[in-house]
């Protein structure tokens, strides 16, 4: 039985913050790496953290928990956490967990940069 490819996570610094772009499935196996990367990105208390999920085809509640934690840190830092480019399958888990109205979710990265 083959294991999955590890989740890859890319970060990019922007004027008022950072963009975090995971690539791959975010499940119990990948979520700890995302959590670590988001924590690192939030160490400098950026005003804006954009999480671009455009290349995430799958997420479970481990990923949601990671994003909830990051949102709480952003609020504590008086910054914003914005999620963008959700694929439909991933959007549906936000809806099932009724978190689609809790997070700031936009369609594109451009929108996330202007919000």
């Amino acid at each position, binding site marked *: *039985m*083959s*294991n*999955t490819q590890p989740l890859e996570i890319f970060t990019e610094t922007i004027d008022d913050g950072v963009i975090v772009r995971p690539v791959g*499935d975010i*499940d*119990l*196996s990948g979520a700890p790496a995302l959590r670590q990367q988001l924590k690192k990105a939030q160490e400098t208390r950026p005003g804006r953290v954009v999480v671009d999920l455009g290349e995430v085809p*799958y997420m*479970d*509640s*481990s990923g*949601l*928990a*990671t994003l*909830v*934690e990051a949102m*709480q840190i952003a609020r504590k830092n008086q910054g914003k956490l914005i999620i963008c480019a959700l694929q*439909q*399958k991933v959007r*549906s*888990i936000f809806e*099932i*967990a*009724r*978190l689609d109205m*809790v997070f700031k979710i936009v369609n594109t990265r451009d929108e996330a940069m202007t919000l």
Partner: protein
Amino acid sequence: MSSDASQPTVRLEIASRPSLLAAARALVATIAQRCGFDEIQCGQISLAVDEALCNIIQHGYNCREDGRILISLSQGEAQSPGIEIVIEDDAMQVDPDTIRSRDLDDIRPGGLGVHIIREIMDEVSYTRRDPGGMRLTLVKHLHPVAAAHTSESNT
């Protein structure tokens, strides 16, 4: 829904290792598709199983990676089409009545798995196994929309 003896049952035994979740999801989605569910439903059914496995790994086995998890999948009978998934473990036993989701208005990390499972599946039943471990039985009925879709795609 009980499984029909004439329909094949697929069984998968995995270790309680997070890196094996993707393989389990892929198998569940494949079987769900063969049971007639559409792509979105297959994704949701595999999500429900993923959540159940995560709970077993994290809470049942306390993140130990050498625990045993057995997943059995059966297609429903012709008069009650759908899928039945039974997930068994040798992990810590808990009172089934205490297995519940957290309050969704209490926004905090974690505690959503049971809610997601119950939202997706039509029947969810936790029981204790004898002599140890837990058994989770999940049933999803094939609703008329998906049945019609299957019928069309087979013509």
